């Protein structure tokens, strides 16, 4: 099935989200839609899926113009969509979720659960998904939940599958598995529209790349184009994918985490005897597969969780057991991992979000009364300094793109004198242009002598920023290694191997891996 968009335009008031977009999706292709956050990719797909009505332009399937009034018609026409936030009911089983809205009915108007189960098993087997139809969604890892969404779309005979930022929620391993699934679907003849802002993924699986910027198609590229070329198309200027930074100037020990332990309510260890030191003027990157205690480490350091044992000394001042307020007052800046839940208040204005954790302090308040002038002045200054793209300081922060929201969070945390900066996933869901900016600000903070801890599951980010790397596995710090450590060794350590073992194994496996890669490349070119 061939899908074509001609001159699709979508406006929200004065804001043109999609400006005369032309797009052709050939059958059996993986078509990547690449663009910064807020470039208009999701809006375009929502138009295609019948969720928004286009102001102009038309949609053609196999050269026949079609009109969708809602998702149902789009689905009937063979278009399936997997949203970034899954539309699954956690307490239902996989089979129930897959047939939801399209239930097979048997006698007495009952749902034919066996039929539902067979549907799941059949699709799951065909693509090697390994999904149990009777499992409850809430018990499944995110990657498997995503496969359930894909099964749901395929069970409705989707011949075009739209994946909206599918890798944003996945671990590196799950991302690799998803890539494999995408290749298999392609082999089976399904066209895929792959929306993303991650260059490497695009290069890995896409057949055609369309780059969108500020609501317009700015170019198409082949997957052979270099990351720099793609990035340039996306953001309109050349992007340094590796951060320029000088070697660290160490200025003496600052943070000393000593035998830190944390148990969950069931007594299971979340942090297991973690010891770390960070010096002034140094960036420690905490790497690891998501869910190995990094989140808990950051939350414990900032006082959101109370450690079971151990100490956290910042400049010889004990932080363990203090409230968040006192930890922040001791000079700790914290960029929370989940921006929309913990980092900002969606319906507060940009200006209010910029003073969220400093509202009790001068000059923003005096004797319990807010100083609106000071808050506005602060906002004006920070918006300019951090190049936050917003209509004004008085609009809700939810109207900003992800990258600009994160700039607001960072601007807030860096606006006071810090003795320690902890940034969890500082560039998650952030466009390339903002990533560069955020990385530079973090390095600049290091250069003035602030000790910095970065928690990141993106290996690129870890390697770009780290002066030393702590790898975590099952709540333990496996080892602290130099930033020159290879990706392969880091990967092995993330699976629990010690530094020495990983080095040995890496050397031994070098030949094998090389051979495997050659085979894989052969497969891709088929």
């Amino acid at each position: 099935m061939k899908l074509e968009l001609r001159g699709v335009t979508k406006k929200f008031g004065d804001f043109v989200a999609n400006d005369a977009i032309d797009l052709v999706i050939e059958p059996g292709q993986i078509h990547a839609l690449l663009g910064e956050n807020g470039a208009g990719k999701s809006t375009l797909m929502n138009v295609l899926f019948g969720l928004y009505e286009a102001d102009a332009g038309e949609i053609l399937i196999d050269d026949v113009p079609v009109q969708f009034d809602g998702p149902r018609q789009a689905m009937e026409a063979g278009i399936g969509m997997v949203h970034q936030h899954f539309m699954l009911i956690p307490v239902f089983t996989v089979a129930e979720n897959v047939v939801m809205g399209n239930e097979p009915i048997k006698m007495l108007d009952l749902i034919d659960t066996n039929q539902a189960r067979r549907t799941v098993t059949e699709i799951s087997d065909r693509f090697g998904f390994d999904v149990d139809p009777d499992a409850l969604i809430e018990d499944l890892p995110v990657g498997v939940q995503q496969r359930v969404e894909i099964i749901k779309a395929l069970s409705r005979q989707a011949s075009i599958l739209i994946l909206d930022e599918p890798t944003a929620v996945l671990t590196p391993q799950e991302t690799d598995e998803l890539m494999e699934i995408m290749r298999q679907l392609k082999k089976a003849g399904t066209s895929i529209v792959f929306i993303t802002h991650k260059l490497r993924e695009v290069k890995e699986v896409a057949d055609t790349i369309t780059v969108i910027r500020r609501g317009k198609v700015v170019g198409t590229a082949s997957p052979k184009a270099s990351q720099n070329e793609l990035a340039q198309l996306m953001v309109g200027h050349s992007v340094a994918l590796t951060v320029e930074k000088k070697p660290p100037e160490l200025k003496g020990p600052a943070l000393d985490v000593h035998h830190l332990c944390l148990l969950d309510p069931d007594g299971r260890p979340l942090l297991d005897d973690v010891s770390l030191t960070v010096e002034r003027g140094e960036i420690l990157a905490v790497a690891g597969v998501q869910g190995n205690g990094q989140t808990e480490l950051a939350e414990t350091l900032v006082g959101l969780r109370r450690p079971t044992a151990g100490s956290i000394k910042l400049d010889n001042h004990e932080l363990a057991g203090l409230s968040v307020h006192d930890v922040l007052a001791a000079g700790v800046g914290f960029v929370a991992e989940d921006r929309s839940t913990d980092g900002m208040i969606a319906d507060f204005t940009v200006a209010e979000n910029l003073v969220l954790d400093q509202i009790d302090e001068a000059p923003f308040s005096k004797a319990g009364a807010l100083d609106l002038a000071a808050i506005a002045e602060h906002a004006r200054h920070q918006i300019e300094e951090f190049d936050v793209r917003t209509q004004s300081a008085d609009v809700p922060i939810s109207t900003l793109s992800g990258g600009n929201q994160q700039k607001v969070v960072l601007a807030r945390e860096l606006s006071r004198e810090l003795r320690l900066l902890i940034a969890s996933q500082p560039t998650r869901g952030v466009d390339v242009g903002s990533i560069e900016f955020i990385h530079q600000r973090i390095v600049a903070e290091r250069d003035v002598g602030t000790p910095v801890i970065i928690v990141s599951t993106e290996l690129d980010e870890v390697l770009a920023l780290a002066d030393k790397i702590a790898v975590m596995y099952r709540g333990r710090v496996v080892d602290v290694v130099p930033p020159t450590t290879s990706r392969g060794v880091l990967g092995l350590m993330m699976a629990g191997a010690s530094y020495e073992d990983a080095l040995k194994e890496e050397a031994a496996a070098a030949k094998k891996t090389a051979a495997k890669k050659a085979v894989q490349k052969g497969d891709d070119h088929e």
Partner: protein
Amino acid sequence: MSETTTAPAPTVDQAHNDDHKTPGGARATLIKIIDGSTITSILAVVVALIVGALLIAAADPQVQQTATYLFARPGDFFSTVGTTVADAYSALFQGAVFNIDTSYTVGDFLRPLTNTIAMSVPLIFAGLGLAVGFRSGLFNIGGQGQIILGAVLCGYIGFTFEMPAVLHVLCCFLGALIGGALWGFIPGFLKARTGANEVIVTIMLNSIAAFFLGWLLTLDAFQRPDSNNPVSPPVLESARYPAFFGTSINLGFVLAIAAAIAVWWLLERSTLGFRLRAVGSNPDAARTAGMSVPSVTIWAMTIAGGLCGLAATSQLLTSPFQQLNGDIAGTFGFDAITVALLGRSRPLGTVLAGLLFGGLQAGGYLMQSATGTPIDVILVLKSVIVLLIAAPPLVRAIFHLPDPERRKKHHRASTAAAARSEATA
């Protein structure tokens, strides 16, 4: 897309929750109602009046009679309906705003309006209290109990101690404030310390307060010496709110307006208010920013209770309700919930909604006596307003208004819409 507007609300909340990880759908619903547009509030009132008109017509004996020969002479039926509804609503208006028929003195002319204002005072006080709770993300159903406790302290001070006039009023006012605040503090403290759901605790405390008052009224210290009924002695003259220009408007209304301004300042201009709103919107982010969610919860409930307690002053320190009895709180605690929601938990909105409800009450009496329309219609009007405010999609469907969420640029809106469409698809 009509299918989206009639989609079941829980799915929307589901998507909403996934985005924000807010605990429970109640908070999400609350935020939705508070964020609703002014238009929704106004249209809710309009629809309520239309529904009320239908009921007024249906209940009228003359209309019923003309309906029996509807097909023979439809003109009779429709003109009777028209006059019946017009008579009832004009009586309601005259009873609530100004009386066109009597033009003896300016006082007579404006009496309905002054009655409306007087009746709105307890609703404004209690409505403000509930609004503070709502803005902090707390569903305080305990206005009733908080008013009772305010009344107990206010009344006791008012009829027991002899003091100079100004001081006496002040002491009674503070008594009401403290009594209500105490009754608000309890659920706040329990929620902060143990996570006890404030909805359930406040409902329970309503009953406890009512029985507590019933018991107090059997004690010598509270019961009127010359009566066997459970009523207290009247509040002393020195503790009454001074009335203005011989009307039924008194100091209570001025204080209610002052309270509205104070609440506005608290919410919009103070650091405590900033924290209340932050916790109300996103407790996770508030906690991460170093705010103490438990202490904010306790403050919010205590302030909410104090304001509700003040509603008792308009009952006790004003003629003719100057004595404590079992019915002292009426249904103000519950009406105030509607008032606060109709006013979208904004101080100005709450004052206006309080005046509207006061007007309905005041006008309802005249409507009943002048046209024989049952005053229960007023209750129906209030109920329809509650229903429509709690379900904004209903109002939008009636008036074909666009869903504001679908207009937002943010992708969150589109995913929520997607969830709804997919649920119905």
